[in-house]
């Protein structure tokens, strides 16, 4: 995890980003741009045993660096993918619970804030057009995991902000998932097949991980928002797999090779723009982000 320190109006606050995957790395990058590179606190491997072995390091850091200052914990350490099985999801849940127990053991987290990255796609799978009245109905282990994580967080943190992100895609970095859009770009250059769980007409709402990073930075640095709230991070612009493929083909000027996989998840998941954050959330248009990612890929 990466820790940043914010000094504002004579008050010190610590911001801790847990996870360096697709969203976590984007969040860390954006905080680094504002607050400097921060300090890395190693968590070891993604197991509860590893957490136990790093407990001393974390508790030392909390006692000596953080002390009584408030902390914004930003959880971006999701490991399970959309199609993860129960075992994989249980591993992530155990790790998450272990982490929360660990920090609760060593400090009074009722003065801290948890900002939890959750998944709108997993929680509202099969709901079609999601608006204010749509009830959560996860239909697979991944969606149920995300909902459970939100409920567990409510038991620990009076101040909790949940960000339900839709289909996220990110820049091309080694070592983490990059989302469908980026996978299509990478595989186009490598003449590899992209696996798709859906059909050509399947609609999704794609958002760029950098937008999430920027939004979290704006929200966190502007003011210390307390209380409980859930935010939907979506673009409000339904996009079909067909459209994404054509866009990537047009930008990369390469053939796109795809394979449709079972189990198929061809039901649409799109979101009404009414339930998106009305302030501070500026999703980048898909075409612009695709061109940027393509440029990064071809020049790296």
């Amino acid at each position, binding site marked *: 995890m990466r820790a940043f320190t914010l000094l504002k109006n004579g008050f010190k606050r610590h911001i801790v980003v847990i996870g360096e995957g697709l969203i976590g790395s984007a969040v860390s990058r954006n905080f680094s741009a504002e607050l400097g590179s921060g300090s890395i606190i190693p968590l070891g491997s993604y197991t509860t045993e590893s957490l136990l072995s790093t407990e001393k390091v974390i508790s030392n850091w909390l006692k000596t660096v953080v002390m009584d200052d408030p902390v914004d914990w930003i959880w971006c350490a999701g490991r399970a993918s959309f199609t993860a099985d129960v075992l994989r999801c249980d591993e992530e849940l155990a790790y998450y619970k272990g982490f929360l127990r660990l920090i609760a053991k060593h400090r009074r987290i009722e003065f801290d804030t948890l900002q939890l990255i959750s998944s709108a796609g997993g929680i509202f799978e099969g709901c079609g057009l999601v608006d204010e009245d749509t009830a959560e109905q996860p239909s697979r282990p991944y969606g149920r995991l995300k909902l459970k994580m939100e409920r567990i967080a409510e038991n620990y943190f009076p101040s909790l902000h949940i960000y339900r992100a839709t289909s996220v895609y990110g820049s091309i970095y080694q070592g983490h998932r990059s989302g469908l859009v980026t996978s299509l770009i990478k595989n186009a250059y490598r003449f590899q097949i992209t696996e798709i769980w859906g059909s*050509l007409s399947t*609609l999704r709402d794609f958002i760029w991980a950098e937008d999430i990073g920027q939004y979290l930075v704006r929200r966190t640095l502007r003011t210390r928002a307390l209380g409980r709230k859930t935010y939907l991070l979506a673009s409000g612009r339904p996009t079909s797999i067909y459209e994404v493929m054509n866009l990537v083909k047009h930008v990369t000027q390469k053939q796109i090779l795809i394979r449709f996989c079972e189990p198929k998840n061809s039901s649409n998941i799109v979101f009404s723009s009414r339930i998106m954050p009305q302030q501070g959330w500026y999703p980048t248009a898909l075409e612009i982000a695709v061109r940027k990612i393509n440029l990064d890929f071809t020049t790296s």
Partner: protein
Amino acid sequence: MNIDPPTSVSVVIPVFSGADYLCDLTQQLEQVKVWLSTNDAPVSIVEAIFVDDDSSDGSDVILASLLEKYPWVRVVQLTRNFGQHPATAAGILHSSGDWVCTMDEDLQHKPQDMLRLLQTVTSAGGDICYAEPSLGTHSSFRNKSSWLTKKIMSALSGNKWITKFHSFRIIRGPIARAAASVMAHQTYFDVALSWHTNRVCTISLAMKDPRAGSSKKSGYPLKRLIQHAGRLFQSLELGILKMASLLGFILMLIAAFVGLSALAIRIWFPEIITLPGWTSVLVMSVFFGGTTAFLVGLVLNQVLFLSQKMRGRPVFFTVNRQSDLIIANWLDEHQPQK
């Protein structure tokens, strides 16, 4: 048998000068929506997407109030006036319905008739249903010139549906979005639709432009209509281009025949051609002319191929028509309210 969840319909309305009509239009859409919901229909209207095409008559203010009042209304604002087809494409690209119905802003197209379009297209197993005005909707001159233009374009391109193109249409959602996503600058939306399907049907409906004959300006003055026709012309693949290489080859064969004939006559019947040098000039002219015609034909074929590729004309497209009959049967049994 019902469908769970119901098949969804998105309504897309480009707006340019609709301030006088938008409130009534939305109320009528709501009546249809409520009627479908009350009668447990296998189809529901999930959203109405108004695309503000840089309107200048206060439509944007009215749209803002409609957005507040109706949770199923969405507004997409374009940065400048792009025209009806781009505005329609923008609205469609923001839609999520299994079916997309497009209509004009001025109540020329009755929202209740949308169900008749849907009934027709689902009964026929079609993908697009156009409304066909049973009466002329505009002035006689405008109606006739529009008809003539489309007739000429239809003959030139071989696309028989051009004369049926109409802004009041219902389209299968994935096809609408696919066509909208490959639309380029100056592409006529219905031509892009025709690249994806030829399962087109029509239904005759009574329509009248409320602005015709009144002092109210139509949203589309003459200059805009001419541009519209130009857009249609540019979008089409003219039939003659498809036959370009064949025509060039035929011309080359004719040229070869003429040249060889002239040569044969010169050799075996020299008394027929008395003018010195005439045969040589003729042979050279037909040789270069025929070769040029053939090469130009090849080049035009390649241009057509590249043009199709650039426009995003798909190699293939797939759809699911499973729920069509359920919807058609239900709409047959339940008459929509007037």
